[in-house]
């Protein structure tokens, strides 16, 4: 158990936070505005778009990994960028998973804002763009929740992360891929220990965000 307090585990943990943090921010900045627009605008096929978004919750992450792999493999269209087996590729793969999740939660959050508020904002003369922004602000708690759920998804990701990252020691090994490897080797106790580290780290992140919310800084 003392092994868990090693520099290796620290390095792996920091990389986990970096990759998942970036994926969350990138994914949320796409997913949340998209979700707000889908939730608030009326358009043909809106129902279909919503259904597709919610269906993507069940999108197999390893497929996301395969897609990114094909895109960034040397044989692939973006191969010359040399991004395969780097943290960047892992961020892209996780972002693909964060987007539908944050979009879906945002759709629900903005839809639930009372119609009287939406009408009043319009009545008061807000432009369509201002309406969307104001409703998003009213649904702020829900939007933060969307980002937090997205982070949870990203930091728990293993299949796609392994596929496009390669679990290279010191480069692309994160907590989840390390757990997979340790389990494969039969070191169940150590793997569980890493799992505890992951949960505690994720918990610390969430606690910090909650603290910010309470202090009304978020």
């Amino acid at each position, binding site marked *: 158990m003392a092994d868990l307090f090693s520099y290796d585990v620290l390095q792996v943990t920091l990389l986990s936070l970096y990759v998942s943090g970036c994926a969350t921010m990138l994914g949320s900045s796409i997913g949340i505005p998209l979700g707000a627009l889908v939730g608030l605008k009326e358009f043909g096929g809106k129902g279909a778009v919503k259904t597709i978004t919610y269906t993507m919750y069940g999108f197999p992450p390893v497929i996301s990994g395969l897609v990114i792999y094909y895109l960034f493999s040397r044989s692939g269209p973006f191969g010359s960028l040399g991004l395969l087996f780097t943290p960047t590729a892992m961020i892209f793969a996780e972002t693909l998973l964060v987007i539908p999740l944050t979009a879906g939660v945002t759709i629900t959050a903005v839809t639930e804002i*009372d119609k*009287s*508020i939406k*009408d*009043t904002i*319009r*009545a*008061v*003369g*807000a*432009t*369509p763009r*201002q309406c969307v922004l*104001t409703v998003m*602000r*009213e649904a*702020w708690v829900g939007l933060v929740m969307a980002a937090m759920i997205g982070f949870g998804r990203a930091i728990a990701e293993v299949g796609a992360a392994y596929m496009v990252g390669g679990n290279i020691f010191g480069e692309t090994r994160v907590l989840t891929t390390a757990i997979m490897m340790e389990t494969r080797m039969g070191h169940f106790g150590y793997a569980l220990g890493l799992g505890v580290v992951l949960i505690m780290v994720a918990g610390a992140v969430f606690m910090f965000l909650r603290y910010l919310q309470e202090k009304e800084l978020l």
Partner: protein
Amino acid sequence: MTVAVELRNVDKRYGDVAAVRNVSFVAETGHVFGVLGPSGAGKSTLLRMIDLLESPDRGEVLLRSRNVSADARDAHLIRERIGMVLQKPVVLNRSVANNLAYSMSIRGWDEKEIAKRVAQELKRLGLEGRARKNARTLSGGEMQRLSFSRATVYSPDLLLLDEFAANLDPRNVVLLEDMVRSYLAEDSNRAVVLVTHNIFQAKRLCHRIALMWDGEIIEVADRRKFFENPDDERTAAFVRGDIAF
């Protein structure tokens, strides 16, 4: 005496239900025009069409003799000249002061002007001490008065009130009705359209009243005539209290 709002032969359906049927009336500046009738008579729909939140299926809505449409590009500009207060208090999840400032800040008004008007309204509402507090912490009556202030703080020409004092205690009802009178008194160019099912309120506030029943306008008359000597049998029965809402 100018025409603030005119409706001509307006129809509106929702699915199978004809919410508004062939409605026409004229509301003049300097006056409170009341639309009286039971809930579900289509009164709210009328207001929404006047505020360009919805379009009539048939007929015209004229604001200051100008034909307007809810789909128009500049619809939001027209709404800038209109204020609306709903039955439910609508406060945004921010401070009292910011709620008041909202309608002006979205139009990019001068900061100083905004601050001045906000201060005035806070005083009128008696909420100076709670300017920084989240508006959701106010009582129901305070929130509704705040909603009213937010709707009038940017000096709209037309004020639409949809059962704005329903469910409130007598004290707040009085305060709100006084606010309506102040609003009109400040500028002779202003008009109010009040939708209500409260006969007594209509009697207190309105200069001219229309009785709406099942989507149709049964009768329009000045206050005196409406209550003392109406043309229609149903109006008389309604005023007597024979027909309960």
